[in-house]
């Protein structure tokens, strides 16, 4: 897929087909693409399979996934946790599970990382310790248990879980800045680099474009996603609202959302104000 030279949010949203698998991030860094999520809701995207990397359980990341669930954009989610962090449960997530309208593939955080790392390397699967004896494993027929094939001779049985690689169709995230070449700076947060490596299409919003290129400064280069991995980049100041670039979050804004989203009617009103339209049918 190709993108215009200076894409808008709607251009980015158009690159997310119905039914796509999409990675989103955990929201302890200013990685939450709320403005893009709003554009996706406006476009009326349907049937997404969202993979949270590895959770959406900070206030802003939980709110983003909850909004997309409530707006009817998500058919299934693979996650290790969805909540509004210390503010409490994510209301639309809870309601959708109860109503049976959302399929949940329950995971554990290192399993999401291991599967994406395998996907990023083009390997078919990744082994992972733990898991054995859990109901997570029992309900994941795609996860297998094998006997460690490289154990020392005579060491006895050593069962270990193996997880199929994850390659999302699309990675979406926000970042503080991109340079003139379109390289994206994410600091020490390697999760966005991992998502970019593992996904086929990478859509990024940034607060600003700055002149020059980050590779001129080794300190910045270490925290940079090369432009070659980015499919499309839109400049959206405040695109990670209610997060701020220092990693903080406007908790009152999330509380207002949480309060509204407790009921179907309250959510519909909130969504109409949020995206400027009624809930798509």
């Amino acid at each position, binding site marked *: 897929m190709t993108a215009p030279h200076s894409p808008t949010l709607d251009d980015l949203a158009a690159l997310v087909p119905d039914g796509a698998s999409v990675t989103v991030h955990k929201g*302890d860094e200013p990685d939450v693409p709320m403005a893009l999520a709003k554009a996706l809701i406006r476009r009326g995207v349907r049937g997404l399979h969202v993979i949270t990397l590895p*959770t959406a*359980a900070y206030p802003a990341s939980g709110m983003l996934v909850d909004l997309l669930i409530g707006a009817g954009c998500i058919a299934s989610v693979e*996650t290790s946790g969805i909540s509004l962090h210390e503010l409490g449960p994510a209301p639309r997530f809870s309601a959708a599970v109860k109503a049976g309208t959302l399929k949940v593939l329950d995971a554990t955080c290192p399993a999401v990382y291991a599967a994406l790392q395998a996907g990023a390397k083009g390997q078919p699967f990744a082994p992972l310790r*733990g898991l054995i*004896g859990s109901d997570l494993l029992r309900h994941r027929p795609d996860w297998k248990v094998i006997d460690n094939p490289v154990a020392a001779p005579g060491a006895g049985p050593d069962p270990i879980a193996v997880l199929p690689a994850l390659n999302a169709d699309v990675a979406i995230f926000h970042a503080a800045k991109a340079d003139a070449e379109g390289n994206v700076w994410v600091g020490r947060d390697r999760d966005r680099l991992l998502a970019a490596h593992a996904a086929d299409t990478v859509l990024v919003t940034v607060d600003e474009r700055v002149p020059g290129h980050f590779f001129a400064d080794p300190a910045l280069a270490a925290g940079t996603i090369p432009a070659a991995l980015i499919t499309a980049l839109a400049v959206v100041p405040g695109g990670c609202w209610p997060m701020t670039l220092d990693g903080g979050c406007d908790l009152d804004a999330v509380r207002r959302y949480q309060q509204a989203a407790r009921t179907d009617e309250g959510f519909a009103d909130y969504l109409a104000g949020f995206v400027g339209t009624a809930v798509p049918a």
Partner: protein
Amino acid sequence: MTDGQPARPEEVYASTIADLLAGVRRVAVGMLSPIPGAGALLARELSTQGGLPRTQVTILGSQAHNRFTNGGAELFDLAGRGRIDAFFLSGGQIDGAANINLVGTGDYPATPVRWSGSFGSAYLYFVVPRVILFRWEHSRRTLVDAVDFISAPGRSEAGVHRPGGPIALITNLCLFRWQKEAGRFLLQSLHPGHTLDEVRDQTGFDFDVPAVLPVTPSPDARRLALLRGPVAAQIAEVYPAFAQQVFGVSTPVS
């Protein structure tokens, strides 16, 4: 201000957690864990005063108390190598075999009550040597005979790689010790103001009771000063609502 006031329950729990972390080199604090975070930060403050190696604390979600540079996977990579000594896990349900359930009640996946998810439990419970379980609501709906969904099992069959596991369970009524060989909890102490009958009434699983049952120590003046000073200021970065409620720390919305 909270200076000079008696210890609040949260301060008793945090101080108890600091005791459970004695001698730990590296402790990590996961999601939705403000009191464990306060306990870990208290343990670090105490470690600097005893001439011992300073306890390293990593709090997920913190910029200030996070020395990771390889993304969210780094915690799990370190834990897999035995480099995380202690961690905290909770559960919507915890049973007498120390199985924890972070997913929901009833028959999965049609859970009548759905919780947020299993987070790192199904891995960290296996590989971190000192896992401290916490569940502040001590009731028959939280401490059950058998959990409805095993996010992570308390014990593993022989042959399964399992260097880690639980050491204790702390609630709003008491502290239990986990007896690894017996596979049962032992009531270790009652929190101030609570009774054995109350614990028996509110616990859905069988547990052992020692002949002499002490009261959980309340933090002394020195610990309270640490909790209400540096610890309160530090935990407010990640848990502003908690810090305001317990310690009266107000943080501006950034």
